[in-house]
């Protein structure tokens, strides 16, 4: 008979080991899935996790992509992790990402063809504000009316997608685009572009912002009163209230920060790798970032590593699609599986497993 006994404190060793274990288990289960699709599982896993980094033929293209894809994921996940730690669930980062991109691109398109040094900083501010404002809707509804922020933030994703469609077909459509949906390409607008900073690395301003976010979050959580309050609220809301934590202020801060960071990610993407506002420019980073946040154990450094790994599955997934004909959906299922395994093996860090007979109470 297997019995689970709650640990007084989560095991530190297992807290570090479980994500690695989860990745290993996902590779096994994913391999089985690829085998079921009639592909060679070993080759599939190697194509996803090894070839993008070390295969001579692909690495030169794939390595820079790692930062391009990890940048937005890390940026969004850092914001989400603050809220998740405090039990505030913003799962609408995808919507905030879209609104940030729209706000930032809107500034650039409104001022086109102005060439000024302050344009890009202005776009960055607008992007952050756009995401922040969109996240403030669930935040204010939560603090004012105690409306469930999970449902509101998620439903707003669908609203944001409609706004995106409307914008790319209407207001923001490229007047010189021959009637095709989609805005001007910001990469061809030097003052507004978010270019690769060091050639061949994939490093752009969004990646820089991601690194800054990691460091800031680390300091905030470990050295700052606000970070302590976030952690305290997550572990014991009641104790936090007695300690004088203002729960409403915390909701506004956590949702606002995650919204602003998601908005920034959207802006850097639209001004950089994506280049333009189009109907389907969002790629689900806002949802994948949820997986990244959990895989990184809601810890800034963990999230950085998890973001890189997740970016690898995106790039490897594309490669596997190209080389082996593994459908893109399989990679999506693979990422979902990873979160399942992670949550499942978490039992090891919170509980001791005891073998033996169950005694009669």
């Amino acid at each position, binding site marked *: 008979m297997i019995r689970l*006994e709650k640990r007084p404190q989560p095991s530190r060793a297992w807290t570090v080991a479980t994500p690695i274990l989860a990745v290993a288990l996902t590779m096994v289960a994913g391999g089985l899935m690829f085998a079921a699709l009639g592909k060679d599982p070993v080759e599939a896993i190697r194509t996803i996790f090894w070839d993008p980094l070390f295969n001579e033929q692909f690495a030169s293209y794939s390595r820079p992509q790692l930062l391009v894809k990890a940048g937005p994921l890390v940026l969004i996940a850092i914001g989400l992790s603050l809220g998740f730690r405090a039990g505030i669930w913003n799962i609408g980062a995808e919507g905030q990402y879209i609104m940030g991109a729209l706000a930032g691109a809107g500034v650039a398109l409104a001022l086109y063809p102005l060439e000024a040094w302050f344009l890009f900083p202005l776009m960055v501010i607008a992007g952050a504000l756009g995401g922040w404002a969109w996240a403030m809707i669930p935040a204010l509804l939560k603090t004012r009316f*105690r409306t469930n922020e999970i449902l509101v933030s998620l439903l707003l994703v669908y609203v944001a997608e409609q706004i995106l469609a*409307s914008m790319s077909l209407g207001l923001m459509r490229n007047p010189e685009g021959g009637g095709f949906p989609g805005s001007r390409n910001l990469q061809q607008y030097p003052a507004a572009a978010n270019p690769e900073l060091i050639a061949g690395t994939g490093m752009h301003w969004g990646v820089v912002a991601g690194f800054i976010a990691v460091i800031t979050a680390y300091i905030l959580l470990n050295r700052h009163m606000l970070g302590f309050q976030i952690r305290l609220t997550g572990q014991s809301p009641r104790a936090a209230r007695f300690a004088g934590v203002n729960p409403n202020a915390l909701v506004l801060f956590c949702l606002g920060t995650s919204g602003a960071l998601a908005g920034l990610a959207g802006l850097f993407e639209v001004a950089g790798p994506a280049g333009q506002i189009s109907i389907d420019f969002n790629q689900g980073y806002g949802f994948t970032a949820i997986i990244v946040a959990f895989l990184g154990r809601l810890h800034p450094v963990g999230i950085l590593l998890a973001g890189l790994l997740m970016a690898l599955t995106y790039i490897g997934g594309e490669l596997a699609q190209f080389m082996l004909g593994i459908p893109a*959906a399989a990679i999506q299922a693979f990422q*979902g599986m990873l*979160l*399942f395994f992670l*949550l499942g093996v978490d039992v090891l860090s*919170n509980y001791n497993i005891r073998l033996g007979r169950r005694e009669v109470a």
Partner: protein
Amino acid sequence: MDFGAINPVVLIASLMVASTPILLAAIGELVVEKSGVLNLGVEGMMITGAICGFAIAVETGSPALGFLAAMLGGAVLSLVFGVLTQVLMSNQVATGLALTLFGLGLSALIGQGYVGIKPPATDRLDLGPLSEIPVLGRILFSHDLIVYLSLALVAGVWAFLRYTRAGLILRAVGENHDAAHALGYHVVRIRLAAIAFGGACAGLGGAYLSLVRVPQWTEGMTAGAGWIALAIVVFASWRAGRVLLGAYLFGGVAVLQLNLQAAGLAVPVELLSASPYLVTILVLVIMSADRGRAAVAAPASLGRVFHAST
């Protein structure tokens, strides 16, 4: 603009069809939440049900088998959530999200070969002369079996929770799992059963979407219906009768906005498409603004982890 094209009788009849997927998912989730479990994976289970039902219906040519397969698919997927949250005691919010993300990927994977295919038609139930009654016949007596099944399910769940001993036990588990455990009820087993029921309902709802309402398969076709179902449970204050009201209200908004789009109302199409989500948010706000009631209505153990030794 031509409002004359909107026929109120057809509107109400199609409202019932449009509401059925959400109604099925919501009534299932109601039972799950009544047992004290918050399963945010409704969207994932619905879309898995949609493709399982679609695939089986296309392969066998029988919609009935499709609906059964959808229920099975939804239930199996929900049990993944069940094992993780009940046996391995994972966080319910996170696990529910994982279920949705996984379900969306899995369904897209299964659905690869089924894009653009027409499923076998689901027959309307032949109610003979009843369907011939003017107005009422078109509204009430011209639907397929699943519509009536969903209504029966609402009544059944209502009666089960209110009048049966099993329903009482289920509610007790949801209100206070420690007390229920002390009385000797198997909290985990009861919750697993509730979760599987919820999964089957969500799967059935998804299949109704892909086999009757649309009817075809496209990736991500549930488009938030599962989340609206979750909102409806809150809107309904965890009562079966109000779930029906809520689902039909949202079905009404969905059908009306489609009709208005077709009639060429001078409002942006995107605003109309976003209206079901905006209405859902509005209703959530109104319901939760009433502080006392929302807090009392929710099952007290909702979302809390149960561990027997404590």
